[in-house]
């Protein structure tokens, strides 16, 4: 099938998409946007988090066809701003595989709530797994980003 959607502000088209492909596969393998990561393919890890029509979703759980005509923003499409800088300043990046998904999730959290409490941060990021950091520095990053 042919898929048309807006990605990072630009109209994009993908041809010969097999119906079983996920939005994540289309982004990574057909549109040259491998920033969103695939760590579980079943909605458990949040590594693939992207915005679809302004709402964060797990791109691995979105069938390619469901993205038809929608507005998708990936980590590559976010302005390099306080969230990304805070991840660096806090030491919240180790292997970095979880980072793109977390950057999108934190970007969304702070857009909704500019001064979240620690329990609110934990709740908001409960769907993003990180195996390297134990999350302590990720919490620091959110606090730093919120304060800037």
């Amino acid at each position, binding site marked *: 099938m042919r898929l048309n959607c807006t990605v990072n502000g630009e109209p994009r088209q993908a041809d010969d998409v097999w119906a079983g492909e996920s939005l994540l596969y289309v982004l990574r393998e057909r549109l040259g946007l491998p920033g969103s990561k695939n760590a579980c*393919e079943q909605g458990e890890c949040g590594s693939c988090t992207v915005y679809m029509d302004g709402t964060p979703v797990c791109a691995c759980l979105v069938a390619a066809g469901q993205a038809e005509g929608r507005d998708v923003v990936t*980590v590559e499409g976010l302005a390099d701003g306080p969230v990304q800088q805070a991840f660096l300043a806090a030491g919240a990046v*180790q*292997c970095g*595989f979880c980072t793109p998904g977390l*950057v999108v999730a934190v970007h969304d959290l702070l857009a909704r709530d500019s001064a979240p409490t620690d329990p609110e941060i934990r709740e908001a990021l409960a769907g*993003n797994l990180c*195996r390297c950091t134990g999350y*302590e520095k990720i*919490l620091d990053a959110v606090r730093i980003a919120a304060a800037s």
Partner: protein
Amino acid sequence: MTTVETQVISGVGTSPKRPDGGLKVRGEFAFSSDLWADDMLWGATLRSPHPHARIRGIDITAAVALPGVYAVLTQEDVPGAKRYGLEIADQPVLAMDEVRYQGEPVAVVAADHPETARRAAARIAVDYEVLPAVTEASLGVLLRHVPVRAGDPAAKADVVVTGEYQVGMQDQAFLGPESGLAVPAEDGGIDLYVATQWLHVDQKQVAECLGLPADKVRLSLAGVGGAFGAREDLSMQVHASLLALHTGRPVKMVYGREESFFGHVHRHPAKMWYEHGATRDGKLVYVKAKIVLDGGAYASSSTAVAANAATLGIGPYEVPNVVMDASVYYTNNPPCGAMRGFGAVQACFAYESQMDKLALELGLDPVEVRLRNAMTTGSRMPTGQIVEGPAPVASLLTRVRSFPPPPSSSGDLREMPGGVSNTTHGEGVVRGIGYGIGIKNVAFSEGFDDYATARVRLEVIGGEPAVLVHTAAAEVGQGLVTVQAQIARTELGVERVTVATADTSVGSAAPPSPPRQTTRTGAAVGAARQAVRTELLARVGGARLDGGKVLSESGTVVADLAASIGDEPIEKTVEWRHRPTYPLDPVTGQGNAHVQYAFAAHRATVDVDLDLGLVRVVEIVTAQDVGKAVNPLAVEGQIHGGTAQGLGLALMEEIQIVDGVVRNPSFTDYLIPTILDMPPMKVDILEMADPHSPYGLRGVGEPPTISSTPAIVAAIRAATGKALTRVPVRPEHIVE
């Protein structure tokens, strides 16, 4: 491949931002699963559904017939060695006449779409004759037995405590799955871009299996999404190379999460029997222990894991009389090998549980009984080796104990056991505190020639002095690239430091695991840079370097650094070796088998819902001696991450195997800690320089994984009074 270029602005002991960090936060860093080549094909692997079966035949006809399929290969297509392995070459590249564990690779396919490749693999007809599976270690074939004997084997004591303990099979669960890209080269060789911990060992094994000379198998490190030991063994390296050579096209292989559970080794499950004898005032007289490890179907690094379990298995304590037997067996369970903590984790759960039992028996505080037996510098290990470096065991324990206790529960549901499942508002919830301390060897042991090579080049680029650092060390997330640049900058005083991507064109970095890697490769970089510095100073007759100038002894400027280099760059390649280690005596286990020791202590505070058996960890305090914190932010991050993996083992992480079949190969069913499971972590870092290591470096990443597990379980015991002899602790163990 890319070169990571950076202006590192600070030296050893500060926390510069990681040079790869900017790419990672923008989603631009190329992990091994992100690689792409024109015209590339996708590989897929057919794996055995049976833990043990004879293969009577394989029919690939239907798979080959599928449009879009370019190759279907079985063991007959492996041109070189049919088996490989880290210690013993016992693992088939593709199964031959028999499969020995569920998930063993049987055939590989290349196709133009990953789904086509998977469907083709599913069309391969394998005729299996299912055989009985050995799934209990004690019934398996012995792979290695490591005895350690010290003092009087018949020693008697006033107070005796015994216990039987079990540790389940833990998975490294790195986030970035096994993946890589194999590109056939014009010279008949292969260029392999892969996420690995050990480029040169991969290269040797891949070349042997492909039947190619080593120089025709060129490996480059692609971005690694975590490792924790799981990337020491081969996974898709040979398979992708075979497919690429066969089709003449680049082949990418990326495991999904389920396949990843079958694609790497796990932490050895263990059964352990311990007997501790002590005087009435709590001094240990003897320890007798038997540790049985399930090695699974192939050897991997099992023999070294067993040696660690045996030599470190009584913990950081002075014990005059020891009878220790650690054994590892082949079974038809998934193969086990390296995971963070490497053989020291399982035993620590047992000996620390025993120390708590002893404290209870004697009516002593659990920290007090540990302090009375704590080893120090000069203590003798049960192997006879004298601990020469810092051993601040008592200090680490008193440090974690002296932290103020965490505040009592705020009442916020999110901080209750059960969380927003709304299972309790505090009724039936009891708090407990527990302690744990562990010991870990750093670097390889038993005479393994463990070295790292670094090349450092000092040259003038655009009128500025610049340093290029080139090693084969794998950046797997621990911040090694930053550390290498920091070390290079520290003695050359050059702002511009470039760390080239690791590949096999320099000598071995030999370090599978992060802590060892920072130490060894850091030492090699330090030594290479020293050599560059010496030559430069000799060239212009200076005494030291500072701020881009060459200075004399008295501090006057002799020459400009850039001018002294001119158009004659200085390049030095240095191999750095740890001081040698020696094999263990096969009967007594005596011998200086280890290079260094490292220690960490934890205090855990938990809230337990006694009615439902749900646990919430409220706080974890860690004290650790890191030798020298080259990069404090990264050191804290390693300690946090290691502690979190120990929490996972204590409470939730287990690969569940029934009759040799894995029941939970997904992140839905194999749970790793989320941000809601992790408590605030306080870290107290000691820096006691190691006399045997440049910069006093000591491994950082492993010790915190070892003792957080027993500390958490001790805290649950304190809250519940339950014996809790198995990890992970399940709710039913608490309510039963």
